[in-house]
């Protein structure tokens, strides 16, 4: 048969091999369905593995080492100045990715999930055309769209491979350690990568249109990180817009306009991290009944079904918190729904983690969200300066806070700023999802000395005093 003429049938077609797509594919295969996974990359993993979570966390760990080594000088251990070797960093990153990609590929193979490299485009609600693939057409009984998202490029800006104006993809390629870096966007991507480059020696300037970093995250959780960045970044401009961004031979020229007037400055490189938009164009969705909202996100119900009954969608492509673990959970729901199980995405505590140092993590209801929605809550805060473990780590700037339902004491949300917040948040997720009460969290034993004690003590504060902190609110009657 002629190449490009081949067509195939599959029971479940998953488009996109990121965490949403491969979770859907693997779960569907585990439920006995026959699955084909199509991705433009040769192996599963998606943005998360190749250009997102995994490479950024690889670098962030090393950045933290550099910063810790510097901090140790004031605590009795002095290291020499670090020598940053970009080629060594790239090699290590590649090794990490390779290991994960191999693992995912083996998992797919062992589940009999057929992997096809190519770009899928719907030609009807029952088949897709494959571009740049050995198979031309795939007919499916069910499809799961998990095509993810792409970095937003502001008008007039183009991300060229190797260009000085970079998206997160370019920044993670780590072409060099630029002398100076302009970071546009004070969200988690800009802060994480800004911190990596600052730790590796770049002079980092942050520009943010809002009045502070991590807009949308409770202000008290962002505060310790802000204090830290003040010492780490060369400058931070808030309520400031980039009105012009031009790539020149040896630099990027930026004109910034903000409260303090206009500044024109040249940087070795610029990182644009102003958000991501769904990758739902060019998919041929107009040939199906799938509906999108005005921003391009695919509309789905709690069972991840689109307006087209045979097609489901998950992850960044459907919006909400654009996080890998949310995508995975949705992928599993989609697969279970296809298999006829009564699955539903009903998570009450989707955790989010910002991997800066200090880290910021939260789950469930936030204080600002409660205020916006008019939900009455009681908030308890346990500052880490009262935690023995935090002080030993030199991490006493941290904060643990609980969002509690006043009448019942039920835990609705948890927020942490500080070292290892990524692990601490899990207790909050469990508490919120299980319907635990502050009393539960206060009653269980937290090992001493650990940072997890801050969670128990924040819960104790709901009743007045914590062991290591006298509360300001009187004890409610119990």
């Amino acid at each position: 048969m002629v190449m490009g003429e081949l067509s195939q049938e599959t029971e479940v077609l998953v488009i996109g091999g990121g965490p949403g797509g491969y979770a859907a594919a693997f779960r569907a295969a585990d439920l006995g369905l026959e699955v084909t996974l199509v991705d433009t990359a040769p192996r599963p993993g998606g943005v998360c593995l190749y250009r997102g979570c995994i490479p950024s966390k690889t670098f962030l760990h090393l950045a933290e080492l550099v910063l810790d080594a510097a901090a140790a000088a004031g605590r009795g251990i002095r290291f020499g100045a670090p020598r940053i070797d970009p080629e060594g960093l790239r090699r290590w990153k590649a090794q990490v990715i390779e290991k994960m990609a191999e693992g995912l590929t083996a998992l797919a193979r062992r589940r009999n999930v057929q992997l096809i490299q190519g770009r899928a485009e719907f030609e009807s609600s029952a088949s897709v055309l494959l571009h740049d693939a050995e198979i031309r057409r795939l007919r499916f009984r069910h499809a799961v769209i998990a095509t993810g998202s792409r970095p937003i490029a502001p008008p007039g800006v183009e991300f060229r491979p190797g260009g000085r104006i970079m998206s997160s993809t370019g920044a993670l390629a780590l072409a060099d350690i630029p002398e100076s870096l302009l970071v546009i966007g004070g969200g988690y991507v800009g802060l994480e990568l800004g911190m990596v480059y600052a730790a590796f020696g770049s002079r980092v300037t942050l520009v943010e249109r809002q009045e502070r970093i991590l807009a949308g995250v409770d202000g008290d959780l962002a505060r310790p990180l802000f204090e830290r960045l003040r010492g780490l970044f060369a400058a931070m401009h808030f309520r400031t817009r980039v009105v012009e961004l031009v790539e020149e031979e040896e630099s990027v020229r930026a004109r910034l306009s903000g409260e303090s007037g206009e500044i024109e400055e040249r940087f070795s490189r610029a990182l644009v991290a102003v958000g991501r938009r769904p990758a739902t164009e060019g998919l041929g969705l107009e040939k199906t009944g799938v509906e999108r909202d005005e921003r391009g996100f695919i509309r789905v119900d709690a069972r991840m079904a689109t307006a087209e009954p045979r097609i489901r969608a998950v992850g960044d492509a459907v919006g909400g918190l654009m996080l890998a673990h949310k995508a995975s959970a949705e992928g599993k729901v989609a697969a279970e729904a296809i298999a006829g199980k009564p699955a539903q995405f009903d998570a009450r505590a989707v955790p989010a983690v910002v991997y800066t140092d200090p880290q910021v993590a939260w789950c469930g209801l936030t204080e600002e969200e409660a205020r916006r929605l008019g939900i009455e809550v009681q908030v308890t805060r346990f500052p880490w300066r009262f935690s023995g473990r935090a002080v030993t780590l030199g991490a006493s700037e941290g904060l643990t806070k609980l969002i509690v339902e006043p009448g019942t004491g039920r835990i609705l949300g948890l927020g942490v700023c500080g070292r290892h917040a990524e692990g601490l948040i899990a207790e909050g997720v469990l508490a919120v999802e299980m319907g635990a009460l502050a009393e539960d969290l206060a009653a269980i034993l937290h090992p001493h000395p650990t940072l997890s004690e801050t969670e128990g003590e924040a819960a104790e504060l709901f009743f007045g005093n914590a062991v290591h902190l006298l509360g300001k609110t009187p004890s409610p009657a119990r």
Partner: protein
Amino acid sequence: MIREFKLPDLGEGVHEGEILSVRIAAGQAVREGEILLEVETDKAAVEIPSPFTGTVIEVRVRPGQTVHVGEVLVTVETGEASPEDKPAPAAAAEKSPPEPAAPSAPPGEPRRGPVPASPATRRLARELGVDLSRVPGSGPAGLVTAEDVRAFAARIPSAASPAAAAQPSAAPASPAVEEADALPDFSRWGPVERIPFRSLRRATARRMTLSWSRIPHVTSLEMIDVTRLEAFRKKHKGPVEALGGRLTLTVFALKAAATVLKGHPRINASLDEAAGEIVLKKHYHLGVAVNTEEGLVVPVVRHVDDKSLKEIAVELKGLIERAHARKLTREELQGGTFTLTNAGALGGWSFTPIIHYPQAAILGLGEARLEPVVISEGGRPRLAARLRMPAVLSIDHRLLDGADAVGFLRAFRRMLEDPDELLLSLV
């Protein structure tokens, strides 16, 4: 005491019936075993005897009315003392099972906002079709536990109907993931190879399982003498070939089947269980099973009744070629009302085909072989060598009976045995 007489379970999956006649009236004395009513179900008409002796108090049904199993038909005063009159608390207690101790609060108004319950409890509620917001929580500060959900589901049967819980995917029926015992490790007994079970093979498996588990099949066999037909076929083969067709026995069989189907509307039909209706199809689109390298596909020849043998021969050849090249369109595989499967081409003789769900019947043909046959000539039997072909018809016994199958096969046989008859019946 007054006893209620309810429509008993009539067995064989019969859930309802129509009252044909009422043999008794209020005030009349009846004896146990005396016929009260006559009910027609979709299986048969049955006379229903009284289980009591006494006086009929009330007749709650009238002829023409449809009644369901468990519905009260007649009340009878038996003259016995009622259990309520007896000082037998044990008997009374039997009647109403004890209320679960907790939760005691009756299901009230739905709560607002997220109901405190663990993810596992929430999943259980979905599985049992329970609206979590209506379940009283027995845990701390109103936490709904798994036990609360189970207790609630047990008390409100309608809420717990599995049908409500399943929320079947809106997409075409999802494959049922059957729970079967895990397979043994076959390699313990010798080398094995595992190959993927996918695409067409899997689709065939699903369709056949669906058909075999839903449809009670009955298969009838008929032998057809195709000696004359084969001679006729050979004579006209050449011209049809010149037109780009292939005049095979299948072509004749298709034409004959479509013609016979017109006189047997219930065979060209589907049972719509959900609607409680039989769908009689006034179009004759016949599928032909084609064995390809990839597996079985069933392209459909549309409007067989309106087409000439030549047209069918040309169209079928094209469909079969496209089937082997895997170039059939989805449309060419859809809309069949009846299916023909010819094992004869592969040298197969008799078999029992499985109906192509949701059709009502499938016709199978075997290889025509020369056989010694006793034929009658001028009233004198003699032995002759005749070309005979087995034809089998599997029917959906919910819609059809053996008599329908025999009738179809007889008419089909007559047509194929006498090509003139076949040609004459063509419009």
